[in-house]
């Protein structure tokens, strides 16, 4: 680990002031950043500990929830309103990592998790455009079982590893940010980037900007939602693919639907094409598969991940089938 200075922020203003200096990183639960620092992938000169800020979950006036960036993953999954009104979020969190890590990890930090691409981690021995822009990508011709099939670029085929973020993408969450230039609200789908030629940038956060909260809008749809994760062992593994979905049925037709995929792209993948294909239709398995097929029509599989479009298609169909059965009952 490269030497660094450590300070705790007393409040957001404090954090922004200290965070304005170049080379500073904000520290949440440390579950990803400390690991990256130990691997020398991240080498901040200063850590500003913001894990003690904004750890509240509050009702918003419009009936949604405002989740402080310092809320621990466990606390969010445990919250009664999340369990009853946003089950997809509780399930996504509980599907991620291990209990110990969920006890440490913060909501803000979870949004800023970095990819599990092994070439990204291999600072000494591999080329990675996400680590060093322009150095090349060893993943494209190497082990890429966990890599992207949608939205990738020549420069980068990495995936975003978060489970929680897949649920947030499906829930139309809003990321509340404060920074040197003031506060702004970022729609969740716009928060994470596709890699393009700058895969080093995972999000659109400007230097010095700090996530202070995530807001969930009120949506009755969300109460009828779930998350399914498919992985190489029964627990404690990153997703090969995952599906977050919410669905409502009126008069035998899909009235509204939200779908996001994890493990398929550089960002949590909001499946707008699939949603469009489903809305207003009579639900059945063939429709579900067609909707998923539409979403993955442009998929570009790599050497090891050619199974992902089919797996995603089948998993989505199963999840929608389950939600439809539940909705009908």
């Amino acid at each position, binding site marked *: *680990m*490269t*030497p660094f200075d450590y300070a705790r922020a007393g409040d957001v203003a404090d954090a922004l002031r200290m965070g304005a200096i170049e080379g500073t990183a904000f520290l949440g639960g440390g579950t990803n950043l400390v690991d990256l620092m*130990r691997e*020398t992938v991240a080498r901040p000169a200063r850590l500003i500990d913001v894990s003690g800020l904004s750890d509240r979950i509050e009702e918003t006036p419009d009936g949604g929830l405002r989740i402080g960036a310092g809320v621990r993953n466990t606390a969010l999954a445990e919250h009664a309103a999340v369990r009853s009104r946003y089950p997809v979020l509780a399930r996504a969190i509980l599907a991620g990592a291990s209990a110990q890590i969920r006890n440490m990890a913060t909501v803000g930090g979870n949004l800023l998790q970095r990819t*599990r691409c*092994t*070439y990204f*981690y*291999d*600072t*000494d*021995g*591999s080329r990675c455009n996400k680590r060093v822009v322009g150095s090349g990508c*060893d993943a494209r*011709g*190497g*082990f890429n*079982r966990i890599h992207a099939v949608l939205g990738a670029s020549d420069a980068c085929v990495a995936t975003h590893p978060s489970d929680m973020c897949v649920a947030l993408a499906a829930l139309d969450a809003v990321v509340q940010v404060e920074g040197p230039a003031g506060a702004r609200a970022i729609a969740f789908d716009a928060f994470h980037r596709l890699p393009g030629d700058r895969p080093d940038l995972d999000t659109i956060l400007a230097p010095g900007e700090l996530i202070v909260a995530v807001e969930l809008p009120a949506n009755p749809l969300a109460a009828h939602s779930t998350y399914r994760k*498919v992985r*190489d*062992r*029964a*627990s*404690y*593994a*990153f997703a*090969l693919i995952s599906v977050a979905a919410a669905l409502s049925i009126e008069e035998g037709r899909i009235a509204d639907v939200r779908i996001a995929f994890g493990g398929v792209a550089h960002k949590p993948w909001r499946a707008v094409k699939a949603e469009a294909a489903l809305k207003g239709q009579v639900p059945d398995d063939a429709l579900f598969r067609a909707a998923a097929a539409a979403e993955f029509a442009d998929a570009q599989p790599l050497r090891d991940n*050619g*199974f992902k479009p*089919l*797996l995603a298609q*089948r*998993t989505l*169909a*199963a999840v929608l089938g389950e939600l439809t059965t539940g909705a009908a009952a």
Partner: protein
Amino acid sequence: MSIIDSAKQTAQGLVMGALQKLVPLAPDSWIPGGVPDPLIARKHGLIGTPVSRLDGPLKVSGGAAFSAEYRFENMAYAALAYATIARGRVTAIDSAAAEAAPGVVLVMTHRNAPRMKTPAMFGTSGSAVGPDTVPILQDDKVHWNGQPIACVLAETQEQADHAASLLRFTYAELPAVTALAAAKAKGVEQGLFMGQPLRNEIGDAEAALAAAPHKVDRRYTTPRHNHNPIEPHAATLAWIDGVLVIHDASQMVAQQAQTMAEVFGLKADKVRLTSPYVGGGFGSKGLWEHQVIAAAAAKLAGRPVRIALSREGVYRVVGGRTLTEQRVAIGAAADGRFTALIHTGLSVMTPHNAMPEPFILGTRSAYAVPNIALNVDVARMQTLANTFMRAPGEAVGTFALESAIDELAGELNIDPVELRIRNEPDKDPTSGLPFSSRHIVTAWRQGAERFGWRDRPETATRREGEWRIGMGCATGTYPYYRMPGAKARLTLTRDGDAVRASVEVAAAEMGMGTGTTTAIVAAERLGLPLDRVEVGYGDSAIPGAIMAGGSQQTAAIGAAVIAAHNALTAKLLKLAGNDSPLAGLSAKEVGSDSGGLASLDDPAQRESYASILKRAGRDSIEVTEAGSPPLEFMHWSMHSHSALFCEVGVNDVTGEVRVRRFLGSFDCGRILNPRTAASQFRGGIVMGLGMALMEETQFDERSGRIMNPSLAEYHVPVHLDVPEIDVIWTDIPDPHTPMGAHGIGEIGITGVAAAVANAVHNATGRRIRDLPITLDKLL
């Protein structure tokens, strides 16, 4: 029956019981005509009674000190830098930034490392345990991607790690063979194991196969694996008054100390290596470069050193199991009897080691077949030296063989259990030797009954919701070994009117339960309660050399303790002299019983150990003896066996496989401690489940670099992957081994991957011949 008759019988029983309880001196030989170890006849003693492991309280409270938990005054911390090319030379080293970094004590490379001999490679002599033939920091050559090329010592681990990250190396690369196809194109050689060709030919297997009315001929592949003990490899060491003291994590303390002594040109007694606790090994806890580098750095810096490999470091420095490509072809008559068995293929090793994965070993004695062709070819790739990993050979060989048997059973429409039983040999089909003890049919019958094998569904017919359910079975096998060189030191110390015994063996305890089992056996042999026996192990200062490898440690210790007990008895009789009730009896005429020696003919003629010592004015008595040469192999084919049953669910949507039930029915001689034995069996099975479903070391064929050197990316089973595992055993003693026991550390993993693959086939109709069985292969 009259009351009198009944009383007579009871009295006779008591007398017989008393006689049986006496443990006469065990025969120190295992040749035909030799008498079985008398402990085998003792049915109601400590042996076979479940005993909790004696080191349990220390382990559950964090009080057991592992190698990286010893401390020396003024100790420095080591960090390694690893090569990033597969082959070539280091032409320049920029160490200025590292040397200037805070806390740095030493930067050691091949330029300033002390001159050392290359550790003699494993197998080149009785004590040689070096990993390969590569000189350690003695020249500029790079032999694999990941080879240690520099070591930094600093005041703290954080400082050492940081400084190591500042080192910059320039290389002159040479062409390297890092792709399997390229390695094969360069040609293959005959594989040798322990100096012997991995090749058997009996009859004409190809011709018999061609003529067989029923046959399968398939190709199976297995990837590289890593042991991944949860304790990373580490050593804490110091040069103290010319003695190199090493606290290590070792499966072979004496051999490692000896090899280290040779590396540094020291007399054997100038290296002291202790390793009382080993946090898992599975074949990996031996001598690798890190201990040599740390000792060299300690010498150069004049400071004690702790070297604790990072998890990535373990993957760069400590070899794993190599890959295999296997062909299994079986020809059979309509009644299922095998007419031809071909098991051949390829394994990979390096230019600098000699360890093909000997996947045909288990096949040699498996089935009665008149025509057999077995062969392992080997190709060489520029990688870290591969090594032994739990059941080297059998673990992956049984996957191929036992999958093929299942395929043939389907072809013949014969139940796979019955097909195996139908081909049970009456003698070893390749060596021609009689089996010392083989009760696999019993294991099959008992296992099938308990598992409910008769309920196995027709292929791809049983469903529960999204899950397709199937059952599979397979045979596991592992040989009985006993290596020469074991010694035991027995000490009896007077403690009032009783004695305490100490048994010391240069063995290793990695969690197998060796310490506990050794105490049980010694207590039983000496006729002492368990709490009067203390066991010492894991220290090179103890005489003899015992390896926790090849599942042979228990037998090796057992034979050494027998020899020491014999010597102790003779010495005690001499000490007892003419004033003893035992006067006039020879060592062969007495046995140990209830804290003393007694006449075998008249148990009432006896004297306690304490009394003998007291009369002789002695506080203690000590003997050290070597076990007899392992001659049993010359006369018998000696193996353990298992019949494995597995039930899986395969998700019809995602292809995910979950093991729902597992049963292992074992035939491994007499079980000494059922509690720890059950754990050994289960542990092997769990590792087998990992091999079946998820484990693979990702080796990038472009760079020769391992790309998942991490427990996050190399998947081992987690709690939710492990079903309740039922284990049973025949408990039939092998009359030709100490205690009638077989080693059981490795048998557990064998056959498991095949049992899973066969169950997956039964569930889905899909045959997966390439491990691991990941979900993408089943979509």
